[in-house]
C-alpha cells in the first residue's frame, strides 16, 4: 500500500492512461521485424529467408536506425514494442537492441521459436523481464515439429531453449499454428502449452500467403491450410475457444448488413501499430503490402510516413460491385479472414471477395449459432 499522495501504483492495462492513449489518433505500439531470416524453414511461414542469406541481412536496420525510430515513437507516446522476425534472436546484436529499447521506457515483448535461447538470453530476460515472451510450438514430437520446421535437429534445440527459459522461471506464453502437418497432435500441443504457459493457449488456423510472393512456397502454404470443417472441428474441440466464440457471438455476427459505403478499410488499421519491416519500411498492418501503404523510413520520418499511409487509407474507395455487394456489407466480416491486406496477398487487389474465406466464415457462423443455441438450452 502506498501512503504518500505524490505517487500511485498503476495496473497499466486497466489504467486511465491507457484509456487516454487508446483515444489518441495514432498507434501506441511499435513492432520491429528485426530480420526476415530464420534458423527454421517452416512449411507455412510467410516471411522466412535462410539464416545465411547475406542479401537480406545487408538490408536489415542497424541498431542506430532502430534507436532513431524508437526515439520518434517514444516522442509520440508509444508505450508497447514487439520484437519479431523471422527469428529475432538470429541477430548478434539482439541483446543490445532489446536493452536499448527497454531503457527508453518501452514495454518490450519478444516472439521467438526458442531454438536459439542461450545463457546470455537467459541472463538478460531474468534481469530485464520482457513484457511477454511468446514461443510458438510447432509440434510436441520430433517428427511433427521437424516436419513443420523443415530442419533436422530443430526439435531438440526448441526443447532445450524452452527448458532453459522454464527452469529459470522466465514466464513464457505458448501458442500454436494449426496446420495439416500438426493437426493430428493439436490437442496434445494444447495440453503441453497449457501446462507450461502463463497464459491461455492460443492457436491460429489462418496462414498468410508469402510476403515475397514466392509461388512455390505459396503452394506449400495452401496445402497446409485447414478446410472449413477442420477449422470448425478444432474450435469445437477447444473448450476455451468455443466458449469465447459463444460469448462474443454478438460482436462476431451482426444482425443486419453493415454500411461501409464503399470504404475499402473498415478495420482499426490506423491505430494497430507501427509495423517496421526488417528493411526499414513502415506498414500499419504487417500483411498490408500494397505499395500505396508502404513507405520507407530510410526516406521519411515515422510520422510523415504514417500520415501518408493514413491519408491513402482514409481515401481508399472500392468500385468493385462484387466487393460492394458482399464484403462491404457483410454481417460476418469479423468471422472472416477477408481484409484488404489478405485480399491483396491472395489476389493482387484490395477488394476481391475470396471464395474459400467466405465458405470458412459461413461454416463458422453456422457452428457458433448452433453452439450458442445449445448452450442457452442447457
Amino acid at each position: 500500500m502506498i501512503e504518500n499522495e505524490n505517487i500511485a501504483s498503476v495496473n497499466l492495462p486497466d489504467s486511465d492512461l491507457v484509456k487516454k492513449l487508446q483515444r489518441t489518433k495514432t498507434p501506441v505500439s511499435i513492432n520491429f521485424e528485426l530480420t526476415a531470416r530464420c534458423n527454421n524453414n517452416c512449411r507455412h511461414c510467410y516471411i522466412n529467408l535462410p539464416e545465411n542469406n547475406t542479401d537480406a541481412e545487408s538490408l536489415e536496420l542497424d541498431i542506430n536506425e532502430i534507436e532513431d525510430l524508437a526515439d520518434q515513437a517514444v516522442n509520440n507516446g508509444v508505450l508497447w514494442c514487439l520484437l519479431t522476425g523471422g527469428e529475432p534472436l538470429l541477430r548478434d546484436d539482439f541483446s543490445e537492441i532489446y536493452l536499448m529499447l527497454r531503457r527508453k521506457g518501452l514495454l518490450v515483448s519478444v516472439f521467438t521459436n526458442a531454438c536459439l535461447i542461450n545463457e546470455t538470453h537467459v541472463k538478460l530476460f531474468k534481469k530485464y523481464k520482457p513484457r511477454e515472451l511468446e514461443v510458438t510450438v510447432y509440434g510436441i514430437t520430433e517428427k511433427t515439429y521437424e516436419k513443420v520446421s523443415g530442419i533436422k535437429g530443430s526439435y531438440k534445440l526448441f526443447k532445450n531453449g524452452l527448458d532453459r527459459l522454464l527452469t529459470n522461471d522466465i514466464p513464457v506464453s505458448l501458442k500454436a499454428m494449426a496446420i495439416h502437418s500438426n493437426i493430428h497432435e493439436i490437442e496434445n500441443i494444447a495440453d503441453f502449452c497449457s501446462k507450461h504457459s502463463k497464459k491461455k493457449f492460443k492457436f491460429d488456423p489462418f496462414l498468410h500467403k508469402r510476403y515475397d510472393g514466392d509461388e512455390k512456397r505459396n503452394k506449400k502454404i495452401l496445402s497446409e491450410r485447414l478446410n472449413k470443417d477442420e477449422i470448425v472441428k478444432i474450435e469445437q474441440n477447444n473448450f476455451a475457444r468455443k466458449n469465447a466464440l459463444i460469448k462474443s457471438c454478438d460482436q462476431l455476427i451482426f444482425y443486419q448488413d453493415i454500411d461501409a459505403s464503399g470504404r475499402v478499410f473498415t478495420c482499426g488499421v490506423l491505430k494497430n501499430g507501427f509495423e517496421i519491416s526488417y528493411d526499414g519500411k513502415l506498414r500499419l498492418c504487417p500483411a498490408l503490402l500494397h505499395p500505396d501503404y508502404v513507405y520507407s523510413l530510410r526516406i521519411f520520418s515515422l510520422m510523415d510516413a504514417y500520415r501518408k499511409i493514413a491519408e491513402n487509407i482514409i481515401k481508399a474507395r472500392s468500385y468493385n460491385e462484387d466487393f460492394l455487394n458482399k464484403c462491404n456489407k457483410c454481417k460476418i466480416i469479423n468471422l472472416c479472414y477477408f481484409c484488404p491486406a489478405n485480399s491483396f496477398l491472395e489476389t493482387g487487389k484490395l477488394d476481391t471477395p475470396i471464395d474459400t474465406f467466405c465458405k470458412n466464415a459461413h461454416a463458422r457462423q453456422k457452428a457458433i449459432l448452433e453452439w450458442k443455441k445449445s448452450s442457452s438450452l442447457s
Partner: protein
Amino acid sequence: MKIDIINKYYKNKDVIVREIEGEYLMIPIASGIGDMEDEMYTLNETGIATWEKLSSEKTLETVIDELCEEYDANKQEITTDVIGLIEELFKRKIVLC
C-alpha cells in the same frame, strides 16, 4: 530504514520516467524493483519535481530547500511530503542511498 534528510538519495538507473499525455509514468525495467512484477507508478507534480532533483551529489535537505525556494512553500510541509515520498520509493528500490 528511516529516511534521514542528511543522506543523499539518488535515482535507480533501472527506473525510467516517461511523460505521456501529461502523466508521469515510472517504469521499473529490472526485476526486483517495485512491489510486484509488471507494476508501474505515476507521480504527481510534486512527485516529479522531487524526483528530478534527486542526485547522489546532494543531500535530501538540499533537495527540500530547492523545492521550498521554487514553490515558495512552508519548509515543514514540504519536508513531511518529501520524506513520505522517499520512504515509498526507497522501500521499493526506486531510489537508492
